[in-house]
């Protein structure tokens, strides 16, 4: 009955692995989007260009 167990284990491992990789990718994209948000917020707070300096 090895075939039976290999089949069941393989199926659920494959699905969990696929879901896990998706979650990792989602976390990565979420992090990078937040970074761009932060960068844009910084841009807006900075004074315009180098005109203010001597």
């Amino acid at each position, binding site marked *: 009955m090895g*075939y039976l167990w290999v*089949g*069941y284990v393989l199926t659920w491992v494959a*699905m969990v692995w*696929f879901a896990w990789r998706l979650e990792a*990718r989602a976390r990565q*994209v979420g992090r990078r*989007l*937040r970074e*761009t948000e932060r960068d844009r917020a910084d841009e807006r707070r900075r004074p315009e260009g180098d005109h203010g300096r001597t």
Partner: protein
Amino acid sequence: MDLPRAPGTVTDPSPLPRLRAPHLVLAFLAVVTAVVGSVIGLWVVPPDAMQGDVQRLMYLHVPAAWLAFLAFFVVFVMSVLYLIQRDPRWDLLAASSAEVGVLFTALTLVLGSLWGKPIWGVWWTWDPRLTTTAILLVIYVGYLAVRSFAADPERAARWSAVVGIVGFADVPIVYLSVTWWRSLHQPPSSPQSMASSMLWTLMLNLVAFTLVYAYLLLRRYQVAVAEQELDARRAED
């Protein structure tokens, strides 16, 4: 995934009515039905009279096959919608369904082999459904290859939509032709009637697999939309 969620922006990607963290609800339901379905399939429902315990692979193999074809039907519908409306969200849904579909198609083939070896003594038979599934896998791979080899996202979307539509039209024709081909070379196998307990177990596992598909599809789509937004922002800077 905690993306900044301003309503009405592209980080609110779902064209469907919004739930809070719908993917967690789907994941929970999927896990519950999958566990119950497998437990019943492995220990509660009686084994097949002729095939023995190996027949329990049916509760995985048949739902996987069902979802493999359903996923491609979704690819087809989304491809048509995309070509008509040119809304990139349809294209991303199509691509997401294709990726998840490859998973189910590959599973169908592997489980078919695992089931076939102890029963018929061979790893592969030219059974019409199995053969059509193998061809479906090649069509999926072609779809995904077009997307990754195209010059830009708009062409990737357009060309893969065409592949999705033309490929889908092919599936029933392949099935018919292989069925006809096999019927000429061997007597048709008599359809086996199933005990009602087996049928219910099969239905339960089918629901479980559909929930898994829905969860993976939603998640993949959300990631695709977020990645597209990320590329757009980077292009602006």
